[in-house]
């Protein structure tokens, strides 16, 4: 049993997806999905536990030995990301019941859960596989299902956003495919470990460079790295609330995971240092933090505000990657985890508001804080976490990120990170002010607190935000281990690059 966990994580939701689709309407599809996601969460956590205790797990699909067969290879990095994905799915699902009934047409609900499971399959698959082409396949499974999920939104803009995302996402995936093809043409293998062995010899080839560039741009599109983020704000804004919660917390995170894999496992360090990769990460990260945060300040739609904030937060992670030190990677991984917690909580809270008043526009939420104190409290705490107030999870990731920057004496980055926090103060402050300090509008007088089924998952996440701000043995411990696995890198040789 233990050996098959990595496969089961992918296969169980995959098999469940078509079954859920044909279940009768009503709450049965939800229940089935709920059970599946909980099984996945349990499997993912036991997998992480096994990896931490026994080291790397290698699973040969169908008994074909790598590098010919597909290998699932689990170390601390992907075990962590898989746990994030599965856990967020499991927390989202109880929330999904009411929120989906409210926002998605009755007859599409079984299909919604089916697509949700497919998306979960794809995301978990990406984290499990050790084969580059397999990554592409799972990437497309998750992307296609998320296009469908987004298009279920209530407004017709959901359709155009999904379409826009489809075009951008497919271009990204195809770029990735081109890159993989070019690398394959030189190495003849798709297995990540095998590639890591072969590539140092071939690093001078132009084809490898080209392939690398294609892969990078492809993934950067998927993870909405600035300035390739254009699909994200609309997609998150117009998708149903549940979908936004799930995607915001997982989809980009998984893309970041592939990015880390490609950079640190597959490609040799010397190769990366010969390219401007890290500089690009740092520049893109800084631009994302500042520009996307400023965009966020001027949004009047709360979901869009949070979506732009996501772009900015991805910028922090890009910065961490760009530092290319073990501290930087630790920071990036910790923030990956923590940002999933806080953004999921925030989007859930907004979903609860939409559940009650059917809108998430700034001008419609005036004074709701008094009507919905629990939802409001959740927004405050998750918002503080987003800003990075000590005592919350957000502070821990910022702390590690800034120490990573200080280590390289990258003063501009330090300034940008702290400035980004200030901008977050402004946009979260705007939200809180509208919710609490503006007088209640007449139409909101009779609004009640969101139902318990929405509040419980929300507060589970909020408590997690505080818990992981005080006890970081899980997050930081695993992230440090993961950074070791990724095996980074001498900091001295690149500190000169950062220090300009």
């Amino acid at each position, binding site marked *: 049993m233990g050996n098959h966990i990595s496969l089961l994580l992918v296969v169980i939701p995959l098999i469940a997806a078509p079954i859920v689709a044909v279940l009768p309407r009503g709450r049965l599809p939800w229940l089935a999905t709920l059970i599946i996601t909980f099984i996945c969460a349990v499997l993912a956590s036991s997998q992480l536990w096994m990896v931490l205790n026994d080291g790397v797990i290698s699973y040969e699909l169908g008994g074909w030995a790598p590098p010919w067969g597909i290998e699932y290879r689990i170390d601390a990095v992907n075990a962590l990301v898989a746990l994030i994905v599965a856990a967020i799915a499991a927390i989202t699902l109880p929330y999904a019941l009411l929120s989906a009934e409210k926002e998605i047409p009755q007859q599409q609900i079984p299909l919604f859960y089916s697509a949700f499971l497919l998306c979960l399959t794809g995301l978990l698959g990406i984290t499990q596989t050790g084969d580059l082409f397999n990554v592409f396949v799972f990437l497309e499974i998750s992307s296609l299902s998320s296009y469908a999920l987004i298009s279920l939104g209530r407004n017709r803009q959901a359709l155009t956003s999904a379409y826009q995302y489809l075009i951008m996402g497919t271009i990204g995936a195809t770029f990735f495919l081109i890159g993989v093809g070019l690398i394959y043409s030189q190495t003849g293998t798709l297995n990540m470990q095998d590639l890591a062995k072969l590539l140092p010899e071939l690093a001078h080839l132009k084809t490898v460079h080209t392939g690398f560039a294609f892969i990078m741009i492809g993934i950067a599109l998927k993870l909405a790295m600035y300035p390739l983020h254009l699909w994200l704000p609309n997609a998150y804004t117009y998708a149903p609330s549940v979908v936004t919660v799930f995607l915001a917390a997982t989809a980009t995170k998984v893309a970041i995971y592939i990015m880390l894999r490609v950079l640190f496992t597959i490609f040799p360090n010397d190769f990366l240092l010969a390219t401007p990769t890290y500089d690009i990460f740092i520049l893109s990260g800084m631009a994302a933090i500042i520009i996307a945060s400023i965009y966020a300040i001027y949004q009047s739609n709360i979901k869009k505000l949070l979506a732009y904030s996501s772009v900015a937060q991805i910028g922090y992670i890009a910065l961490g990657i760009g530092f290319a030190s073990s501290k930087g990677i630790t920071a990036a991984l910790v923030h990956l985890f923590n940002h999933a917690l806080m953004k999921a909580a925030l989007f859930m809270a907004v979903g609860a508001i939409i559940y009650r008043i059917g809108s998430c526009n700034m001008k419609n939420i005036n004074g709701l804080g008094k009507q919905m104190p629990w939802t409001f409290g959740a927004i405050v705490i998750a918002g503080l976490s987003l800003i*990075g107030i*000590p005592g919350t999870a957000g502070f821990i990731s910022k702390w590690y990120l*800034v*120490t990573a920057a200080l280590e390289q004496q990258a003063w501009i980055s330090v300034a940008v990170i702290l400035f980004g*926090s200030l901008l977050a*103060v402004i946009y979260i402050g705007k939200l809180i002010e509208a919710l609490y*300090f503006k*007088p209640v509008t007449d139409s909101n007088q009779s609004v009640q607190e969101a139902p318990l089924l929405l509040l419980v998952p929300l507060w589970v996440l909020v408590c997690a935000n505080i818990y992981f701000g005080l006890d970081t043995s899980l997050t930081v411990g695993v992230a440090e281990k993961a950074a070791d696995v990724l095996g980074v890198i001498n900091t001295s040789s690149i500190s000169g690059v950062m220090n300009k």
Partner: protein
Amino acid sequence: MNPEALILAIILLPLFGMFGIITSRNHPNIREAVTLITASLVAILVVSLAIQFMDGNDFAVTIAEPIPGLSIAFKVEALGMLFALVAGLLWLVTSIYSIGYMRGHKEKNQTRFYAAFALAISCTMAVAFSANLFTLFLFYELLTLSTYPLVTHAGTDEARRGGRTYLGILLGTSIGLFLLGILVTWFVAGTLDFQQGGILAGKLDPAWAGLLYALFLFGIGKAAIMPFHRWLPAAMVAPTPVSALLHAVAVVKVGVFTLLKVTIYIFGSDFILSNDITGGLIWVAAATILFASMIAMTKDNLKARLAYSTVSQLSYITLGAMLASKAGLMGASMHIAMHAFAKITLFFAAGAIFVATHKKLVSELDGLGRAMPITFTAFFIATLSIIGLPPLGGMWSKWYLGLGAVETGQLLLVAVLMLSSLLNIAYLLPIPIRAFFSKPASGSHYTEITEAPKTMLLAMIITSITCVILFFYPDPLYQLATLATGGS
């Protein structure tokens, strides 16, 4: 009670009080009783802690360790003890006062007011007992956030604007500069624990140390050094008890207290003195003292005038910290207490005037002295203490500050201190004098105006008498301040 439990009890009691206040929100009498009981208990505990501490007991407790080497931990040391003592005692007095004020003024949302107030005190106590800079920062930020609802209490546009300035400057400076300073310290020293003699000496080039000190000086926005002082006048939109306790005692003193802690336990006074780290920065404090006093003279709104006076007085403490000599630090530590008692009396009086007459402007106070003799007598005593005249407590701290300036040979600073005292006289003394000796604008004496509610008077009497007592009996403060500055 064992020592660890005592610290935790002092920090947690206001928190429990807060829940008690919230649950009894529909019964104002029970709610106020909860506030008073909690405040009295805290006061008793703080005093007993102080007695045990003076007996030489050690108190330390660690709560959690989020990042290896960085813990949320509490430890009692002299400076923190002094600060906790001031805050704990004054909370009790302010509680008595605010019941009269809130009822006399028929404020809305009183439950939120008392609850946020208790939370703010809890944070203040936690700051006072912080064992390292990380813990201190954590509660420093929580204090900012918990006082935000108090500042915006009125809910008007003006209050919201004030609240925005308040939050913007305090969070902005703390995240942008203070946190950066903490991170750099952590990076350089590898620890953030407060240690006698500092943790930075020998690890940091003095030139960089000056820069780092500047990060702390400006980053600790609660110390209201110019140009980051704007939040304090903005916060005056809050109800007067808030201005009294938080913006004369808790919040602002947390600022200067933090600066003193950083000076003594992070930099170390020897390190500062031997390398002249604060040589240039000290003039920022001197300038703040003078400018703020001058601005205070132009303000006709009584609370605004007091706010600018606070800005100026805070810089006394900052100045003392930056002198870093023994006398300077002594003066700064004692001024935390002396200024607290005097300034809270002034705010109490301002609130009493407002409740009784609804007057906010200095120019409207002519002739009110006869109608409200107790209020204005208290105001007068506190004024003298602020100016630093005997027989009032304020004299001692100014004495040591002046001594510190002389000791370090900064004669120009002595001149600044003296000039500032003259300015104090110019902007504060006319208020009681006009109240007692001028005729009201209408020409006839007030007959319809009487003193404010009794609880408010009681609070004022207690604090103004304390100002006098502290002149004759400054011994506990003196001992704690001596301990804090490393003497025996």
